[in-house]
């Protein structure tokens, strides 16, 4: 079985996810409202320009949208009793999970285009367009991979459990990522903590894209996000392979 054929099947799975999980009304509404809500929460009553807020806001928008549904997909399938049929199809575990990652990726990109457009209309100028686009694609893929990793344990069929546990990871991660304060203004320990979050590197890169200023250099940001994405994806495949059987009993 060629990996190309498997890749094709993961696209089939991604399309299925989009139909079923993302096309649901509440998810779309959440995706649309949430970034706008963030924008307002951060601009109203604060003496900061949209340009100052842009890196952090884009980071949050991408991070929250691309990790919004991913963790719940497998528990949902287990609960609705569609999982056994799906995983016994001639699809490798990596292809199946990659399908779920693609679905989260598409959702993250599409929704994040909205705050991006708003920011551009409000006068934010992206100088390094290619770097920014690359970073946005990479970051979204990286976070989408993380979202699938978050559903590994416990191998439950209760989506709410996974969503709660994944929030325990997602929210702290945002707070340590230099979203509110640029990395170079953080104390030494803050910088050390922020370096374990992949979001830090996207925010840094976004800052570079609009101002040319960054803490790490753009190639470092891109490289680190690539490494994070690879680690998340590999860990997700290995761990899901191990825990998947426990979803059936």
């Amino acid at each position, binding site marked *: *079985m060629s990996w190309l*054929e498997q890749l*094709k*099947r993961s696209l*089939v*799975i991604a399309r*299925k996810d989009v*139909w*079923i999980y993302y096309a*649901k009304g509440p998810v779309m509404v959440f995706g649309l409202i949430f970034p706008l809500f963030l924008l307002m929460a951060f601009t109203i009553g604060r003496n900061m320009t949209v340009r100052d807020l842009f890196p952090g806001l884009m980071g949050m928008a991408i991070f929250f949208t691309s990790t919004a549904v991913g963790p719940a997909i497998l528990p949902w399938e287990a609960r*609705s*009793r*569609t999982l*056994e*049929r*799906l*995983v*016994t*199809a*001639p*699809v*490798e575990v990596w292809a199946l999970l990659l399908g779920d990652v693609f679905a989260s990726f598409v959702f993250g990109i599409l929704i994040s285009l909205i705050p991006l457009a708003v920011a551009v209309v409000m006068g934010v100028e992206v100088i390094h367009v290619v770097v920014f686009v690359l970073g946005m694609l990479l970051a979204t893929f990286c976070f989408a991979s993380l979202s699938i990793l978050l559903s590994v344990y416990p191998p439950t069929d209760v989506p709410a459990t996974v969503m709660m546990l994944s929030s325990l990871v997602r929210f702290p991660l945002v707070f340590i990522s230099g979203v509110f304060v640029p990395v170079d203004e953080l104390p030494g320990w803050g910088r050390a903590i922020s370096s374990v979050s992949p979001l830090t590197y996207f925010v840094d890169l976004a800052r570079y894209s609009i101002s040319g200023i960054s803490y790490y250099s753009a190639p470092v940001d891109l490289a680190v996000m690539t490494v994070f994405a690879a680690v998340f994806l590999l860990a997700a495949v290995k761990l899901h392979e191990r825990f*998947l*059987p426990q979803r*059936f009993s």
Partner: protein
Amino acid sequence: MDAIQVKDLTKRFRSFTAVDHISFSVVEGEIFGFLGPNGSGKSTTIRMLTGIVKPDEGTAAIMDHDISRDPIRARESIGFVPEMANAYVELTAWRNLMLMGELYGVPRREREERAGDLLRRFGLYERRDDQVRGFSKGMRQRLLLCMSLINDPPVLILDEPASGLDVESSRLIKDVIRDLNRAGTTVFLTTHNIEDASQLCDRVAIINQGRIIAVDRPEALRRMGGGLHCIELNFSGSVSENELSGFTCVREVRRSGDKLRLYVDDIDMAIGCIADYSRAHDLRILTLNTLAPSLEDIFVRLTTGVESDELAGAA
């Protein structure tokens, strides 16, 4: 060639052995049944064949593709309906079928043509553009069968395909299984229903507590019960099952509705005992029938045999 070949397959959940060194083979072209009570290890065996449960010991191959070394090939040669599964209720019947066809790499033209044929055959064609959400349990099970056939598999694996369905769906499903088999598809199914097994299967393996205790044609299994007979009766008053099963000529007593079933070796002797018993207790026999040994009787005999052997071993 054997369509399915299983050797010493074993699965433990912690210290509990759910499937215990099972070996059997399903010959190409036959309908092979796994018959056993709930919890006997049927679904676990199937899950090892479909590759979602890793065996602790043993090997298995489907159409000569080893399930551990070549799981994708093995899966491509089967159609599978899990126990208590569901199609995607948010999608239409048609989309569910297309999705499954694509996952099996069936070319577009082929899967559309086959989907149409299958839906017609299972009486779902008119409903193909409806969301599965509105389907009854029987319709959903029929759709799952359509989905399992979209890749035109040489082997069909069905976990309790007809249990808990309305009569019409159940009959339709059994008819289609027989038709498919006549056209060359090998079928491996599980059931806890003896009638289903004897109606459908060419051969039946009786499985209990993770072990196969007999494999044969349904009639041969019936014959195995040769010495065993069943007397069904009821009395005018209440009787103690313990006292009845205490008689040496009675192997086993079961309650069946308002009647009692006594499994006995010698009808003549047993009826004598029963008559003496009812006179001694001032009871009247209201009805008494002798039943030819059914597969169920054989089953009772075989499975209780295993238990009493074990008890003897433990004592």
